[in-house]
């Protein structure tokens, strides 16, 4: 019986050791590979970021590349950027968030983070829809995507909006070279729009 028990214990230890040393266990997010059409968007962005002051994000890059793209495509590319900071210096300098989020999501994150920093109450969803001139559905979709990216999370204790920032770094994001939730979109006549830092 003792030999059997020892065998069980050794088996558990070996299994734990093997799973701890596997690549999957050492990563916080599951590995993501891009489809061909998602890769096309990524290639467009990397080329764009080689131009002066450019940081065109996924949403605008999908529009510029053309074709059918969904929020799931944007999420997949955003997670790929998050998991691969060595792709481009721009990504390492400014962070994946500013490339992954839409202007509306950035504005909402900016306003909620400031409210938390200054111990003010966050605007309600209706306030956001009115002030940002978007539909209530767009506000809900933006909150869902911010949650999916791990930037905001539902919290019933937050009256009205029901969401808060996930980490301190998303509350205190402003500062030199930090443009996490900023967006500047430029359109030159006759050319495709782009975004700058």
């Amino acid at each position: 019986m003792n030999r059997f028990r020892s065998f069980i214990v050794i088996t558990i230890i070996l299994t734990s050791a093997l799973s701890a040393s596997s690549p999957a266990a050492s990563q916080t997010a599951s590995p993501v590979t891009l489809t061909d059409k998602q890769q096309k968007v990524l290639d467009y962005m990397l080329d764009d970021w080689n131009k002066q002051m450019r940081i065109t994000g996924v949403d605008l890059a999908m529009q510029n590349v053309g074709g059918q793209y969904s929020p799931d495509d944007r999420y997949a590319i955003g997670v790929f950027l998050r998991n691969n900071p060595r792709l481009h210096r721009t990504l390492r300098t400014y962070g994946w968030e500013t490339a992954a989020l839409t202007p509306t999501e950035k504005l909402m994150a900016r306003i909620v983070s400031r409210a938390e920093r200054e111990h003010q109450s966050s605007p309600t969803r209706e306030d956001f829809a009115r002030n940002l001139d978007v539909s209530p559905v767009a506000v809900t979709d933006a909150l869902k995507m911010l949650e999916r990216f791990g930037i905001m999370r539902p919290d019933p204790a937050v009256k009205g909006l029901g969401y808060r920032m996930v980490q301190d770094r998303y509350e205190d994001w402003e500062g030199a070279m930090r443009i996490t939730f900023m967006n500047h979109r430029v359109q030159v006549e006759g050319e495709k729009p782009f975004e700058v830092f």
Partner: protein
Amino acid sequence: MLLVGSELKDKAVTVDDASQYSGAHIHLVFENSRVKELDPSATKVFLGGG
């Protein structure tokens, strides 16, 4: 604005931005580095800045 005053100084350029504080939309149109449209009209523009 740096680009509008340098690399894009001879172009017609539209910039869409948002207020740092309120999040209100800011829409600017430039032609040859000169402001053609401002919305809201009280927007202050500093060409050559970041």
